[in-house]
């Protein structure tokens, strides 16, 4: 069911001071001139800024604002005159007894006539998320990367011709806006505030709703793509969609956020028993920088679906998908596309011996070394060159290593981890060996 929102502002000229005065003397319904939505993705939160033209009378004016069936946080309501700021005094904002979702501003005005004001508040129920589609070239050296955002409105309010902005960033919130919006009293009651139970949606209904949304979103795919302006503010990034959007309650909208034709990518394969088990994972690696035709802005986290051009004529194969986190500018990106079978890494223990025993006073063993020789075999069965990263963990910090053969680039990662990085051409099989000596008990000290 669609909520119908009644948003109205009424101005009452206060004739007397008594509280017993009827609240509404004169009702004017000024139109919302413009509305701007700044939607956050790390929290259920949107900053709404709307401008309206009020007609004020000299003296004390009462302005009523109500928001039934929406998810507005009343404690965030603020009104500021955009003109005559020095001659208009907003005395207070009252939330009168026995009515819900209603605020009453007392405004002392030295002028009479039209005054543009700006009303801001935080609301819940609008959200956005980023998602991506990548298409690899046949040789897998470059990727055509397309970014999208999807804005969903479940706020209870229809926003028409709104300027839509999105914030990427992790803000600190101490109260959920939806909880504040559902409070019986805006600031609660002194003493323990009453708990209003949250209405939980049925899972099946949620799924059905998601499906409907998807269908709707498909319908409203844009005819003419819009530009998205991006800029950094504090620790966050602000994305502003060109022009205005109309997003009725219950609807979602998909908007393209960027498209880059050729992002050079590296096929990176990783092997690390302790993290991934005895299997090879495929990653697409690139950098969010100028040399990769990116680097203008951070990339908001989301899911990337990766396809590959297989033959001429735009046929595609689906390569996998990866959920990735926020990528700052100039940061390396490794997109995990899951396990593969066409690149094989096989470590084999070839030799094991112990040595250099130490004995204590009573003849018991007090220290020794263990020597293991491993052979690592890497097979690239693909018809493309690849990069392979192999990590080995030693479970002790007291060790030495000797390496033989073409083991590529060697690096100590931390006290018990080393990394070998190798580049293999198409259909290449490579083997290298290392001898690991670990020290135990008194030999370790």
């Amino acid at each position, binding site marked *: 069911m669609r909520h119908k929102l009644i948003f109205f502002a009424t101005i009452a000229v206060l004739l007397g001071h008594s509280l017993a005065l009827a609240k509404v003397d004169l009702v004017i319904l000024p139109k919302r001139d413009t509305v701007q939505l700044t939607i956050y993705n790390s929290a259920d939160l949107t900053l709404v800024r709307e401008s309206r033209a009020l007609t004020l009378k000299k003296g004390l004016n009462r302005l009523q604002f109500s928001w039934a069936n929406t998810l507005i946080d009343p404690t965030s309501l603020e009104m500021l005159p955009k003109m005559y700021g020095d001659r208009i005094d907003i005395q207070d904002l009252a939330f009168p007894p026995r009515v819900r979702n209603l605020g009453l501003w007392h405004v002392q005005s030295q002028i009479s006539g039209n005054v543009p004001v700006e009303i801001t508040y935080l609301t819940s129920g609008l959200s956005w998320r980023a998602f991506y589609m990548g298409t690899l070239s046949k040789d897998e050296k470059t990727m055509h990367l397309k970014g999208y955002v999807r804005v969903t409105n479940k706020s209870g309010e229809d926003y028409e011709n709104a300027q839509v902005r999105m914030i990427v960033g992790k803000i600190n919130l101490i109260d959920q806006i939806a909880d504040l919006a559902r409070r019986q009293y805006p600031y609660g009651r002194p003493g323990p505030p009453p708990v209003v139970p949250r209405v939980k949606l049925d899972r099946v209904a949620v799924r059905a709703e998601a499906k409907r949304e998807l269908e709707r979103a498909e319908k409203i795919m844009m005819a003419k793509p819009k530009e998205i302006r991006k800029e950094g503010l504090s620790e966050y990034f602000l994305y502003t969609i060109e022009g205005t959007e109309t997003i009725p309650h219950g609807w979602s909208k998909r908007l393209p956020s960027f498209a880059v034709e050729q992002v050079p990518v590296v096929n990176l394969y990783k092997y690390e028993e302790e993290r991934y088990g005895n299997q090879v994972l495929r990653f697409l690696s690139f950098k969010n920088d100028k040399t990769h035709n990116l680097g203008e802005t951070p990339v908001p986290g989301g899911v990337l679906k990766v396809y590959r051009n297989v033959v001429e004529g735009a046929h595609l194969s689906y390569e996998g998908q990866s959920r990735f986190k926020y990528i700052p*500018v100039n*940061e390396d990106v490794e997109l995990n596309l899951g396990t593969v079978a066409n690149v094989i890494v096989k470590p084999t223990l070839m030799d094991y011996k112990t040595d250099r025993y130490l004995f204590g006073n009573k003849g018991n063993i007090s220290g020794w070394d263990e020597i293991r020789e491993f052979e690592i075999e890497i097979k690239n069965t693909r018809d493309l060159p690849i990069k392979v990263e192999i990590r080995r963990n030693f479970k002790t910090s007291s060790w030495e290593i000797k390496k033989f053969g073409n083991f590529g680039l060697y690096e100590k990662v931390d006290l018990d981890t080393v990394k070998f990085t190798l580049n293999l051409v198409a259909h290449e099989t490579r083997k290298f060996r290392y001898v690991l000596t670990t020290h135990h008990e008194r030999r370790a000290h």
Partner: protein
Amino acid sequence: MKWKRTIYSLFTLSVIFLLLATPVYARIKLVALPERGKTIIRLDNPQATLIEEERVLTLQKGLNKVDFSWKDVSIDVDSIRLSVLTHPDKVILLNVSYPPNEAALVWEINSEDAFEVTVRISYLLSFIDRLITYKGLVDMEETRMNLKSFLVLRNFSGEDFESASVLLDEGQSFEKSISHGETKQLLFLNKAEVPIEKRWTFDARKLPWDPEKLETNVGIPVTYRIKNVKETGLGSSVLSEGKVRVFQEDGQKSTIFLGEDFTKLIPVGEKMEIYIGDSRDIVVTQRKMREERINVRYKRKNRIVLYDTDEMIKASIENFKEKPAMLTMIQHIPGQWDMEECNMDYKRVDAYTLEFEIALPAHSKRELTMHYHRRNVR
């Protein structure tokens, strides 16, 4: 529509002239309702709200009984006080008694003459209080903040107050009407251009060391520091505890919401620390590169009794931002320890805590190396 009160509060003040000395079983209340005069709502103590009201009593010469009762309000009975403002030397409060099963008390007052006296009745009233909220607007450079503070009056006491004098900390006061069930929010502090300091903090005990191994970003907490001193335009009174919401100018005549925090009470001279959110453009990757036992001492059967360690920690700090940043890095070394080598200066906050102030230019990477020994580990 006529203003209607659903919950009644009834303050009745009755003056009973003691004409008979014999006790009566049913209390006879001779109710005179003197107008409530000046009323003060004192909100300077966040724990409890004190109401002070003035009334005029017409006393007879001799013994007077004054009956004070209430309904549907929550008054702390033991807090009720009566003080005589006029003729205090001629009017003596003799005793206070509490009638059974009633929200009431009776003052026995002796008066040397028949006259009108002004009295002040004070008591602690529940379910009426105030909150303080803050709204800050920082500039694009994040060096200055316009700080507004709002007073939120919440009255759920059962009593309507018309034109009461509301008293806050340190003598600030104003006239306000507030009905039962009503909440009123008013601006009470507005300071422009308050200097702020922005800080990033990495605490090695609280945050994960290797973000690469995590599915989500590790955010470095970002805070603003505001000093409650004269130099910043503040410093005239304590800053009460309350919720702080911070916004930022966006250069397009609009603002964005940066985050919110709850501040504790900040006395004059102290600083407020507001945690607004996390930075994901500063990435700290910390790894232990060495941990070995040295100088091991044994007892019988090769049992280790005491040893030292040789440890090395490397932390790489990358600033992906276009602006410089100041990172406070907190490291912890338990027990007895000596620093063998450290490539950055630190302050020893306590026996086990080290604090580094690390300046990070825009788009830069720095590396901290700590080589230390823990001594006499058992």
